[in-house]
């Protein structure tokens, strides 16, 4: 992205609440932002190290529950609870990373799915802690220096800060030797090892950062919807993240954000335009078309077009 383009985009994002008239539109923007954090998080693993986590909702859910429980039962304030959500989700990522060190591809996918399944069961059955399927209502809205961030506009800026942080972390990692090591593992693991890339270290690191970021998304979600239930572990959330990353362009920095905006706004737009059955059909057709015509995703396709123009 050019500097001017990036600046324009940032300006647009910063002034968005001024342009969006209805609270509903702002709600869609906030959800797109939360999913943007999640998509960036999944992209670190899927896009850069090439490992598909199909249990990413687990890290999201751990973040959501941690933050909700600490503020509700522990009476922590939002900010330390947010930090704890990030740390705990990151620790879960470390565990998964260590457990599945020797596992790649399909086996890694299975471990992550199983992990999400187990965590989901815990959230349903550990009723004293989680209130079971009834969930935890009344998660407090965050406060900043005594100001409540209860309003949608305020929350939008909080989420925007979350995205900025996730993007910055992703960008700095990816553009460093650490990011090169991630990509080397994706491209050719034996060759990466032959030049001294420590597979264990970098896969675990990617899993920890990715999970921690998903935990951030979970906390932002919990304090926005003000309600957390075992639903946060639904497979649908993981699938949505995967669709966003793949459609937007895995292994690019902008791709997950483009995917997150597109696949949050689109279902909402379709909802207004058509009945439920048609919505799902249109959604499916669009996905097939995207995979068919832009197999590497939207952002790489745009980059390729630009490259052709330049040369």
């Amino acid at each position, binding site marked *: 992205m050019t500097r001017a383009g990036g600046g324009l985009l940032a300006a647009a994002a910063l002034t968005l609440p001024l342009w969006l008239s209805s609270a509903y539109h702002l709600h869609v923007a906030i959800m797109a932002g939360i999913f943007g954090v999640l998509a960036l998080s999944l992209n670190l693993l899927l896009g850069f190290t090439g490992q598909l986590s199909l249990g990413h909702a687990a890290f999201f859910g751990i973040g959501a529950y941690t933050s909700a429980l600490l503020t509700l039962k522990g009476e922590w304030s939002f900010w330390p609870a947010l930090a704890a959500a990030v740390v705990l989700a990151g620790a879960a990522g470390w565990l998964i990373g260590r457990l599945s060190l020797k596992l790649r591809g399909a086996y890694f996918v299975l471990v992550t799915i199983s992990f999400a399944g187990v965590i989901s069961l815990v959230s349903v059955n550990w009723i004293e802690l989680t209130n079971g399927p009834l969930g935890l209502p009344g998660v407090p809205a965050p406060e900043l220096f005594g100001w409540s961030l209860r309003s949608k506009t305020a929350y939008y800026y909080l989420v925007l800060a979350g995205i900025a942080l996730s993007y910055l*972390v992703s960008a*700095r*990692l990816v553009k*460093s*030797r*650490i990011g*090169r*090591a991630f*990509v*080397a593992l994706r*491209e*050719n693991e*034996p*060759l*990466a*090892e*032959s*030049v*001294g*890339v*420590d*597979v*264990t270290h970098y896969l675990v*690191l990617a899993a920890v950062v990715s999970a921690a970021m998903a935990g951030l998304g979970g906390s932002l979600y919990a304090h926005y919807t003000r309600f957390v239930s075992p639903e946060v572990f639904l497979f649908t959330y993981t699938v949505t993240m995967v669709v966003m990353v793949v459609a937007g362009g895995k292994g690019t920095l902008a791709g997950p954000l483009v995917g997150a905006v597109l696949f949050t706004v689109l279902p909402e737009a379709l909802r207004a335009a058509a009945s439920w059955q048609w919505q799902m059909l249109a959604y499916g057709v669009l996905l097939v078309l995207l995979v068919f015509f832009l197999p590497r995703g939207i952002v790489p396709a745009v980059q390729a077009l630009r490259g052709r123009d330049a040369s």
Partner: protein
Amino acid sequence: MTLAVRDLAVRFGGVAALEAVTFDVRPGSITSVIGPNGAGKTTAFNAITGYLRPAGGRITYEGVPLTGLRPSAIARRGIVRTFQRTSVFPALSVEDNVLTGLHLRGTAGFLEVLAGRRRLAAEESGLVTDAAATLEFVGLAHRRREKASALPYGEQRLVELAIALAARPRMLLLDEPGAGMTAAEKTVVSGLIRKIREQGVTVLLVEHDMRMVMGISDTVIALNGGRVIAEGPPAVIQAHPDVIRAYLGAPRDPA
């Protein structure tokens, strides 16, 4: 003594791929491992560089045991290998391939990267300069921006060599560096291998092309059926009856 291999044994199931293999590689030499297909040459490479766990024996480098170490840890000790099949990072540019090879030269840690320390920008531009010099050395400077997978075969092999060199090996193991190359390309590679040795790097290579092997090696080790059958300077190996027999078969008994 640089690399010492003692009684190395590797088994795949019940099959002994290597049995009691013992040899030394002198520092600063070019040593070749030859032998018919299935002799165990690549297996020996895999065992030395940590890609295979030997069933027995010892491998030491400057007196320090390598057995049981992971490949990345062995690379950190200055022993870097290439692979028999072309092995690059296909989707990356030639320059990024070499930058990845420079992994161990970088020092940026996780927290430093997140903090965006200014020192890192200087380090990064230093790495880019090093990558350019390495590409210049193998003659691929003009291909810098191209995607590695888009290069012709011979040039991909040079990218692979550049990746290995970027890791600043003290000992370089080349697995059939001339395989599939034209005669002209092989001459270039032979020249590069000599230059690499002149820079003080010990070279151990597996190669089928006898002209190349005999032309550049100080010492040749002949393997057959997982055992060392001969070791010595090229001229001695070329005339060694066991080596000739391994390649051409035993002379038929007069009936």
